[in-house]
């Protein structure tokens, strides 16, 4: 995670969107950059208290044919 991803306005973010194939006008990009710092803040907290054997809530189940 880089600082400019945290503030949502920098070149790293632009590159990440390009890699994801998202085609944004400068105006659309500017609007989006307001939300990214909040998203980054949330992403930074989701690992709290996890242990190695903790399974996800979403699990694959095999079904008999």
């Amino acid at each position: 995670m880089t600082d400019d991803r945290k503030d949502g306005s920098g070149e790293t973010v632009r590159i990440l969107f390009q890699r994801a194939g998202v085609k944004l006008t400068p105006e659309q990009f500017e609007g989006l950059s307001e939300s990214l710092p909040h998203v980054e803040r949330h992403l930074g907290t989701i690992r709290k208290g996890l242990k190695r054997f903790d399974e996800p809530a979403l699990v694959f189940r095999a079904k008999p044919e």
Partner: protein
Amino acid sequence: MTTKVGLHDLTVAEAGRLIAARRLSPVEYLDALLGRIEATEPSLHAFITVVRDGAAAQARDAEAEIAAGRRRGPLHGIPFGLKDNYETAGVLTTGNSRLFADHVPEADSHAARRLKEAGAILLGKMALDELAHGGPSADLPWPAVCNPWNTDCTAGGSSSGSAAAVAARQLPFCLGTDTGGSIRSPAGLCGIVGYKPTYGLVGRSRVIPNSFTFDHCGPMTRTVEDAAIVLGALAGHDPADPSSVPTDPADFAAGLPQDLKDMRIGVVRHFYEDDLPAPEHVRDTMNAAVAVFADLGAAVEDVSLRPLDDYAAVKMTIQLAEIYSVWEEELRDRPEVFGEVFRYRTLSGALVRGVDYVQAQRQRRLMQQEYAAQMRNFDAVITSGIYGPAPRIRKWDRKAKFSKPSITVGFSTLGVPAVSLPCGFTDDGMPLALQVAGKAFEDATVLRVAHAYERAAGWSGRRPHLGG
């Protein structure tokens, strides 16, 4: 009718009893609701489609069937509305999105089919935020919904049309969808009952998806009894929905009249006092509500769950990834087809990594386990609903979605049953709301607790002064 209220004021239960007794004709009832819609809709914008002709034919069929002694149950002959993300065979289903502006599905959603089988009459496809996620926004195909208690104010979202229509007596009940609070929040701001069932209790096939592991379908009504009646018709296995859990048919209304003397109720005070500090009038209203539960004989004590921020982080990470996966092609190649608010709320999903998604799902299971352990000591928990009064439509803040958690998000992340119901009014007459939540698949207990409060507190009888 022996009372002075109009037919449009009848609850589902009242109308059902009158129809069963052959004192109310489904055709007459439908006409009364169409008149109410005509009188009030220009100031509300609650509907995307009024299914006038189809409803008239269904009402005539219902009348004939009931007259022939073939009444199907409490919803037979009762008109209703579906949020316009529920697919309906032969009826426009738009999601309030340019992507679906002309979309007429070939088949019904599971929920629409179940209600039709119960004899209910589809009268409306209801307005919503774009694809149940982006709005209100001036650049959408259909206008923002106004709040019946003050038409300068928002009806909330995303099930905005459903909430406004039920509050305004245009329809006795509607279905909404709730991903992070989209049934409970508009219900709270419009002064009605909004019920989010346990995840997996009500099938979601052929409902336009928002977030697969968070989406819930549920009823929006004027009373808890009505929510229980509608839930009884909806609950059951949906083979086309992988999250659907096979359950036996249940009469959720049967247990409502019981008192609360054997109940243990936890007050999640930190949600509205610390995590998302509520204004003083909301805290005062919550204190009064807690006192009502104690007066009803329940054992009431405070309980601590995770902070709202924890639930919000997990929900946001998972939902962003899931909703982006649904609309990836359009968001990547032609983002301009979406409204500004939808784009703002979804595009950052492109940057959520696979490992972030899995860690959030791992954290979510941990939260479920912690909640289940806490709930060994309680039958239900209560906390504030969305904070009223509803904001003015022009002052709505699109950034709020990310910058602070919603009061509804915890029970969304946990997948447990939760209901919002009226618990007071501001000095300006705008509704305030309470949430009751419970244990997974103990929906009947949540409804019982909410019903006891509703009867004791007496808020559900108030009506907005709209169109007479």
